[in-house]
C-alpha cells in the first residue's frame, strides 16, 4: 500500500504549515519530497518514520534552518519569505537530538539565557527567563553546572529549558527520548505531557519509538522517503500493520499484545488499546464481560 499525502488543505488554526515542500541534498537525493505538514497550538504531533525518512529534515524546515527547494512554509497563514525565514526561530524552537550540539556555553545558565538574549532581553531579564525555564523542567539544580560534566538526561533537560526560555509557539523535539535511560526518558515524556497540558505550545516530536508516540501523541504523521504517507489519530495509524511495515516501523508493543490476545481468544473490543493503561483498563473492565 503506497499513499502519499500532499497538499492537504491548510488548517486555518495551524501555527506553522509546510506546503508541498521539497528539499534536495547536494548529491541530488530528496531529503523531503512534496511534504505537507501542519501543527497547531495545544496539540502533540508525532512524526514517525524509519531512519532517513525525513523526520529531522522536516524539523529543520519548521525552524527555518533549512529552506525548501520547492513549496513554501507558512506561519499563521502568511508565507515565510527569505527575510522572515531568519526570524522563524522566534516561533518554532527546536530541541536537537544531540544535546551536546546544542549546549555550547560553559554553564547551563548561560546556555539557557542564550536564546532570550537573542530575543532582545537585557541580561537580567534573560537570566530570569533562564531560571524560570530551568524551574519549569525541574532542573533548577543544574543552573550553575557545566554541561561537560552532566549526564545525558541532565543535558537533555537543559537543552529543553534552552528552548522553553524563548517561549516559542511551537516546540519541535528531534528524537527527545533517544539515548536516554528509562527513568530519564520517562522524565522527558512527563515534561512533554506537562507542556501539552498548558495548551500554549504546539508540540512536534520525531520518533521511531511507537510506544512513546502512542502514549503522547494527539496526531501521528508517518513518513517514508521524505514524504507523508499517512496522517491521523494514533489508534488508526498504529493498528494499520501494512502502513507501519511500509514505513519501516514496528507496531507498539500494546498493539502486538492485543492482536495476539484477540487471535488466541477469537475476540476483539473497541476501542482497541494503544497504551499500557488502556490495555490494562480493557482487560480489567471490558474483557471479562
Amino acid at each position, binding site marked *: 500500500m503506497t499513499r502519499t499525502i500532499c497538499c492537504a488543505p491548510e488548517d486555518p488554526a495551524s501555527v506553522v504549515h509546510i506546503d508541498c515542500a521539497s528539499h534536495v541534498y547536494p548529491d541530488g537525493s530528496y531529503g523531503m519530497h512534496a511534504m505537507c505538514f501542519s501543527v497547531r497550538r495545544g496539540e502533540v504531533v508525532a512524526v514517525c518514520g524509519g531512519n532517513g525518512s525525513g523526520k529531522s529534515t522536516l524539523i*529543520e524546515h519548521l*525552524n527555518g*534552518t533549512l529552506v525548501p527547494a520547492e513549496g513554501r512554509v507558512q506561519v499563521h497563514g502568511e508565507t515565510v519569505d527569505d527575510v522572515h525565514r*531568519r526570524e522563524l*526561530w*522566534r516561533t518554532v*524552537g*527546536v530541541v*536537537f537530538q*544531540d544535546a551536546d*550540539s*546544542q549546549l*555550547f*556555553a*560553559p*554553564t547551563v*545558565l*548561560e546556555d539557557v*539565557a*542564550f*536564546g532570550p*538574549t*537573542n*530575543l532582545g532581553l537585557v*541580561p537580567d531579564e*534573560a*537570566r530570569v527567563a*533562564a531560571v524560570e525555564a530551568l524551574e519549569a523542567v525541574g532542573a533548577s539544580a543544574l543552573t*550553575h553546572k*557545566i554541561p*561537560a*560534566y552532566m549526564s545525558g538526561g541532565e543535558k537533555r533537560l537543559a537543552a529543553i529549558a*534552552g*528552548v522553553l526560555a*524563548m517561549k516559542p509557539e511551537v516546540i519541535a523535539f528531534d528524537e527527545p527520548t533517544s539515548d536516554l535511560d528509562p527513568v530519564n526518558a520517562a522524565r522527558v515524556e512527563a515534561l512533554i505531557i506537562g507542556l501539552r497540558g498548558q495548551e500554549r505550545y504546539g508540540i512536534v516530536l520525531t520518533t521511531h519509538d511507537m510506544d512513546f508516540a502512542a502514549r503522547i501523541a494527539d496526531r501521528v504523521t508517518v513518513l517514508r522517503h521524505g514524504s507523508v504517507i499517512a496522517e491521523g489519530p494514533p489508534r488508526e495509524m498504529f493498528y494499520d500493520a501494512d502502513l507501519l511495515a511500509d514505513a519501516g516501523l514496528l507496531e507498539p508493543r500494546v498493539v502486538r499484545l492485543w492482536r495476539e490476545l484477540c487471535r488466541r481468544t477469537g475476540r476483539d473490543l473497541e476501542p482497541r488499546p494503544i497504551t499500557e493503561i488502556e490495555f490494562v483498563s480493557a482487560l480489567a473492565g471490558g474483557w471479562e464481560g
Partner: protein
Amino acid sequence: MPAPRSSGHIPDPNLITLYAERRDSVLHRLDPRAKVGALAWLVLFVTLAQSIPLLVLAWASTVVVYRAGRLPLRELLRWYVIPAIFVLSLVVFLIWEEHGTPLFQVGGLVLTTGGLELALSLLARAFTTVTFSLVVLMTTRYVHLAGLAGAILPAPIDQVFLLSYRFLFTTLELIDGLLLAIRARGGGLVSGVLGRTRLFAGVFALSFVRAYDRAERVGQAMTARGYSGRFAPSEPLPARSAAQLGVIALAFVALALAVVGGVPGFEGGVH
C-alpha cells in the same frame, strides 16, 4: 570541595571551564580587564627580560599566583608537556655553536653554556606565559571573556575568537574519544604513531573533519536559537577597578623605564 580529576586532555578545557565557572579565589574576583592586562604585560616582560634569574623568578612568581588562585598544581605540571615539547623541538636546532664555554660536543656540534642558557630562557619564557594564561583562563568566566573580546576586538574577529575557543573544546573532546577507542582495543598513542604513522595521521585528520562537522551542528543549533553573528553576553562585565588597572598601567610604565634605562636584566636586546 574535592579537586576534580582531569579527563587526561593536555590541556583539559572542561577542567579549565570548571575552575573558571565554579571556583572562587582572590584572583577570580579581580577585574577581568586587569587580568588580561597583566597577561599582556607579562608577555612583554618575558620578551624583553634577558637575565635567566629574572626569567626564572617570573616563572616562579606565576606559579605562586597560580596557586593563589587555588588552581591544581599537578595538572599544571602535566600541561607543561605541550610547551616543553614545542620549545625543545625548536631549541634542539638553536642551542649549538652559541657563544660561551664549551660543555660537550656531539659530532661536529658544540654545546656551550650560552646554548644551555638559551634553552633555559626559552623554557622559562614559555612556562611563564603558559602558567599565567592558564591563570587568566581558569579564573575568568567565559561570559566575561566574551564581554572583553567584544569590547577589545572588532566584529567579526571577536566572534571568530570566541567560537574558535569553543571549537577547541569540540576538537579535544573528539580526539579524547578517539584515544579512548584506540586504548579500548589495546592500542596506544605513542606506539600507534610510531608504528603505524600513516594510519594515525589519517585518523587524526579525520578527527578534525569530524570536529568541523560537529561544530557545524553546534552552529546550526545556535542559529536555531537566534544567533546571527553577534554573541551577546548574558551578564555584563564587572565594574571597572581603577586601582587594579592603575597598577597594571604603572607596571607597563616601570617596564618601559627599565628597558629604556638599561636596568640590569633588560639590557642587551632580545635573544
